[in-house]
């Protein structure tokens, strides 16, 4: 089981960490949330999907709930995350282009739920079915929401 956690931390973990970095401010706060995700993954290692892609979706579901706890102030600062917290700003590569600014403006015009789905689909790139599972909504609801959000974003970009 230790080998499984190490494998997940190496092969899947950076993508989960990136998910958190994209959604926390300041970015080093992602270290504590990620520590919580890894702790839960370790505790639940028996039931983490054996396929890496499915494990990624599973860990994103955990990360999303940990992030919600963090935003409610329920995530405590953990000493074991100190090294990651200190190093994290140096490994982050922020977007740097006019297109990014346009996209961020368009994203900002979406409702929170639509924005969450759109960024999940286009940034972490799970399938719509996986995204629905991560967000705990039905697949048909995810498809409708995604279609609506795409239309709004295109309209929004056309006016920029």
């Amino acid at each position, binding site marked *: *089981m*230790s080998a499984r*956690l*190490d494998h*997940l*931390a190496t092969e899947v*973990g*950076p993508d989960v*960490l*990136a998910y958190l*970095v*994209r959604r926390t401010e300041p*970015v080093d706060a992602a270290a504590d949330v*990620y*520590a*919580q995700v*890894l*702790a*839960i993954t*370790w*505790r*639940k290692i*028996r*039931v*983490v*999907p*054996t*396929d890496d892609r*499915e494990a990624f*979706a*599973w860990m994103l*579901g*955990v990360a999303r*709930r*940990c992030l919600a*706890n963090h935003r409610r102030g*329920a995530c405590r600062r953990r000493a*074991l*995350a100190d*090294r*990651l917290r200190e*190093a994290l700003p140096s*490994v*982050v*590569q922020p*977007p740097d282009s006019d*297109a*990014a*600014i*346009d*996209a961020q403006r368009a*994203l900002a015009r979406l409702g929170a739920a639509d924005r969450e789905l*759109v*960024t999940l689909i*286009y*940034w972490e790139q799970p399938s719509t079915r996986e995204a629905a599972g991560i967000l705990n909504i039905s697949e048909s609801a995810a498809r409708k929401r995604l279609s609506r959000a*795409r239309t709004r*974003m*295109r309209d929004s*970009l056309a006016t920029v």
Partner: protein
Amino acid sequence: MTEHDPLTTLLPAARTDIDTVPAQDLSRGLAAAVRAESRPRARRAVVAGLAVLAVAVPGTAAAVQWTTHTGVFGNPALSEEDASEWLDVCAPDFPATVRRLSPRDLALPRGVTVDTAVQDMYGEPDPACPEPGGRAQADGITLDFESWARCAWVHAWLDDPTQRSAAVVQLTRLADSPLLAAHDGGGTVAHAHDVAAAAADDDRAPVQREAEINCAQVGLRR
């Protein structure tokens, strides 16, 4: 996402990325720290823990008060915990509690007993004991027994042709476990059913793979 979807190129441009190689190192280091802090299966020191306790705490009153029952229950609404009680894995009464948490109807292959399972899962001293903080949830321990039994049947199916029929029945039964379903993060129940179906079809390769990948650490000391 389609080829003509302009968002496909635009939105990734707005994405913050991280440098993968150092992130892998940092993530591995954090995983090691997490593992050192707590264990997915509770392991405790029976003899060593009690010996230290006897030296450190004079009299019996403190020992009686130090119980595995914390009175703290998981809150599924706030995290991935289930609602069962958190147990102190270093407490002297933890071994007895572990036995009580073994499923009453747990069927095991010939020559394997619940004692074998307890010894294999919890027989090694936990390096974290007797320091406080080693915790495990009660339902997780019951699930440990089921997972262990499942692996015992996988090995029995592979090693003992006379137990194959029984192994198929038990692998199917354990795949249908309500507890496993309740803790399934995605695909675990389906995978258990796949292995049971392979066993029923006399398809050795998936069962062998299961033994090597998910059941490699199960020691069957008979």
